């Protein structure tokens, strides 16, 4: 389908027949969004969740210990790789800090779950998760990351990790980094809907 640059988008939006009132600033705003979506290097908009991270973020909901732990955990879930950055690169802990302030139920499972991780590590290794060795950390993660084969006595850890995985994915894949990773290219005006590209039909055998 046709993808548009900012000028084309604006022109499409302006292709409204005379006689109907559309606020010009609304069109400008719409076109700006299109432009920003097309140009991830573009100027950072006000209100964007990922500024250039010049100074350390001070969490409002997490304690300093929880903050260290949650930053470590989200990067175990979504690490940096050849295609894209990590969960912390994408601002996932900051996103979580915001969400915990807004949704009380999230606060509860997060706090209980981080507490469980800490206690489990103390129980197994006599040290916190953050200061445990890489192998020790992976032992706990492997025990809770696969619900179907997890032992009954780590059920609380499994439930927490499911929630944490979901919230990490929400924060990561809704960020600029995550959206670029997936290759999502919608939410923009297209001049003509042409249906599914032939190469996609071929790939799917349709």
């Amino acid at each position: 389908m046709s993808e548009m640059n900012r000028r084309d988008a604006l022109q499409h939006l302006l292709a409204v027949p005379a006689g109907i009132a559309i606020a010009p600033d609304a069109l400008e705003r719409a076109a700006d969004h299109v432009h920003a979506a097309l140009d991830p290097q573009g100027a950072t908009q006000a209100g964007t969740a990922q500024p250039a991270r010049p100074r350390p973020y001070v969490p409002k909901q997490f304690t300093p210990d929880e903050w260290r732990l949650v930053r470590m955990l989200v990067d175990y879930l979504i690490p940096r790789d050849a295609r894209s950055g990590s969960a912390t690169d994408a601002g996932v802990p900051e996103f979580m800090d915001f969400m915990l302030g807004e949704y009380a139920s999230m606060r509860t499972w997060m706090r209980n779950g981080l507490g469980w991780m800490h206690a489990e590590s103390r129980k197994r290794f006599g040290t916190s998760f953050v200061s445990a060795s890489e192998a020790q950390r992976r032992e706990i993660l492997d025990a809770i990351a696969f619900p179907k084969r997890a032992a009954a006595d780590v059920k609380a850890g499994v439930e927490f990790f499911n929630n944490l995985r979901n919230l990490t994915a929400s924060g990561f894949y809704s960020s600029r980094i995550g959206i670029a990773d997936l290759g999502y290219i919608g939410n923009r005006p297209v001049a003509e809907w042409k249906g599914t590209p032939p190469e996609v039909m071929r790939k799917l055998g349709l």
Partner: protein
Amino acid sequence: MSQPRNDLYDVAIVGSGAGGGMAAYQLTKAGARVVLLEAGGMWDNTKDSAMLKMPYDSPRRGASTSDRPFGEWDACIGGWSIPGEPYTKAEGTKFDWWRGRMLGGRTNHWGRISLRFGPDDFKRKSIDGLGDDWPISYDELKPWYDEVDRLIGIFGSVENLPNHPDGLFHPAPAPRYYEHLVKRTSDRMGITCIPARLSVITKPLNGRAPCHYCGQCNRGCMTNSNFSSPNVLIFPAMRTGRLTLLTDAMVREVMTGPDGRATGVSYIDKRTAEDREVRARIVVLAASACESARILLNSKSTRHPNGLANASGVVGKYLTDTTGTDVAGFIPRLVDVPPHNADGVGGGHIYMPWWLDNAKLDFPRGYHIEVWGGLGMPSYGFMGGIQSYPEGGGYGADLKAQYRRYWGATVGFSGRGEMIPNEKSYCELDPEVKDKWGIPVLRFHWEWRDTEYKQVKHMQETFRALIGEMGGEVWSPMPTREQGYGIANGGAIIHELGCVRMGASERDSALNAQCQAWDCDNLFVADGGSFVSQADKNPTWTILALSMRVSDYITRQRRAGAL
């Protein structure tokens, strides 16, 4: 908004959704001076819409808020619970009541599926002996459906299917990748699958630009390329200079004179909490089926001791909602779909109208199927529950690969079917509870019957068969009878209809065939309250057609000097 003047309007309309917006448009166009009251605030898609915002434009990433349960950018302000405006439920009743509180009401929320009721849908009792026939036929409503198509616009395809009348359609958009697969699978299984019929325009219409396929209809369209009441009906009505709009106006009751006729409405200005009144020659209620019933039940007087339009006692009765259940599954064939823009319009590009013969089934009436899936904009909730995919969870590089591979490999089906009205499903005034302005609130009673459970069981079995035929795995086990086969709560599909129903006799209906109160000739209902039955179809297009017809009747009666 302009201040109410102390003078007499030709018509007072309560509610600015599909029914109220259409009445305001038609009546002002016909020359009437109209006052329109809306319980919520102002809204203008061209200025207020979040169209084209990206998820990272908000720290919430599109998650829901208390007044936007369908996500922070959903156009519709309102929800299942509104502070200060409670409703109650009888013991054992599961019922959810959605209310829009903004200009345009629920037309800011809906999926824009715009299906005409068919000839059989107006005479179901004559066909299967259940419920009641309507006092009007499809042929009587057809010209109004045609007019709605011309005025508002709809895409679809001419199919000549029995009981699924075609409209005056704009071209329908081509299917998305997964919709092609669903279409082929349906064809193999003998399930009728055709292009969707949505009120989204794909050609210029009446000064509105065609759709630009950003996929975010639910946020409100800045170019007015889909239907919502404010931008397509109410603002054009205001440009006649004959419409006075009162927002934040919570209607208490319809006022009547000594002769029992309506004299206007009393309302609370929510901004000042002051009681106010507007006087009008004619009152049209379009506040939503249940809210209109509530206003009528609260409009008690010596002449109308049980409330207005309620001499028969049926106001609040025969409340129905659409039956609904959903099934989704993982489709291995769709793994690793090449990323491409699969947004399209804000809704399905295909659907399945009811295709079976009830004579060969153990339940009456039918359902249609809505299809979902695709490469939608990643936002809050993205691929939740990935531990259900084949790897069973995990973390790290492997997890990241899973998100990439499985994004777009889920397909879901939602059944939307016809409930038979029953005497256990109704609303009434709660004898004690009042809202923050002292207005008595509704108490709901609800019961699904075997007719609905069997229908929903059939939906579940059909959707599971479809997913199986596509080579997929259903996410959830088949719900049991004890789990109601997964039927949604009453009210949850947001198609409440029928508690101010029309009929052929004043003994068992509130309104006559013109949606005019039997016991108050200058009072009309132009929302879903007048419906005698549901159908296997969404109600909005029929609400619009009925409201247009009511407005035409009012206009002709006024010109003839009869009102």
